[in-house]
């Protein structure tokens, strides 16, 4: 397989980041990343983007909203219309 172009690198980026590429294509992609500074930046900053968002915990549901939800559920459960 010849050297990858930047376009081919981008096409394989999602599978690369998810670890679902076959071994041979992964090696070609890593060779390209090691030789292309711009694509190295793309891999590095996209990885950091995912990590930063992964670390963002959802905020708790406001207590009043939770209470309203539970009240609506209790009403439904007591009617037991399932």
């Amino acid at each position, binding site marked *: 397989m010849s050297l990858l172009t930047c*376009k081919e690198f981008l096409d394989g980026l999602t599978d690369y980041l998810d670890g679902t590429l076959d071994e041979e294509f992964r090696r070609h992609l890593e060779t390209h990343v090691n030789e292309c500074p711009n694509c190295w930046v793309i891999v590095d*900053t996209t990885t950091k983007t995912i990590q930063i968002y992964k670390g*963002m915990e959802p905020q708790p549901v406001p207590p009043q*909203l939770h209470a309203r939800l539970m009240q609506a559920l209790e009403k439904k459960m007591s009617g037991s219309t399932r």
Partner: protein
Amino acid sequence: MAGKRYIEGEQKKRGCRDMADISGREVAFDESLLVAQAQDGDVHAFTELVNRYEHKIYRLAKNITQHDEDAEDVLQETFLKAYGHLNEFQRHAKFYTWLVRIAVNESLMKLRKRKTEKTVSLNETTDADGETVTREIAVWDDNPEQRYSREELRRILEETIQSLPPIFRMVFILRDVDGLSTEETAEALNISVPAVKSRLLRARLELRDRLTKFFKRKSDDVFAYL
């Protein structure tokens, strides 16, 4: 709660010291047990499932509708519908994926009712050409998030993700934030696996591009790409 009581019983039997001793597989089993109990009419088991997932469903609804009141309605409707249709849930499926599917449908209905420009179709075709969204090429700090306070960082991340088109935002939230697999995301959104992959690529690159102005290393200027 029923699930917790069951786990504690299992822990005693197995000599486990605390919750951390329970493997992910057992937690998944715990969820199946809760769902089964809820299907058998145990309201406490269903309440436990609500407590477990309400914050994620609320975040998803807010992200799709971008409207607080609509998101509150979606949260309520999702769990009311889930309870009402609990017996239709297939036990081999993942409960959270099933909930997401209900929440996505409810959210899209809200958008349609508002008839705003935000109205989206999940089947909308997208051009996922990555090269169009790699405009900003600059090195980031090693731990760029540490440059901001927790509140500032949350605001930056939320505003940035809200600026994405909904079809990309939904896939990114489910796949990269909630940790659903590609297949589960496809199932939850009722779209194909290739569609999930192409939208995920576009979402990741768009976010990366938009966050670069906040996180790039101070000394590095943007340099031309290609």
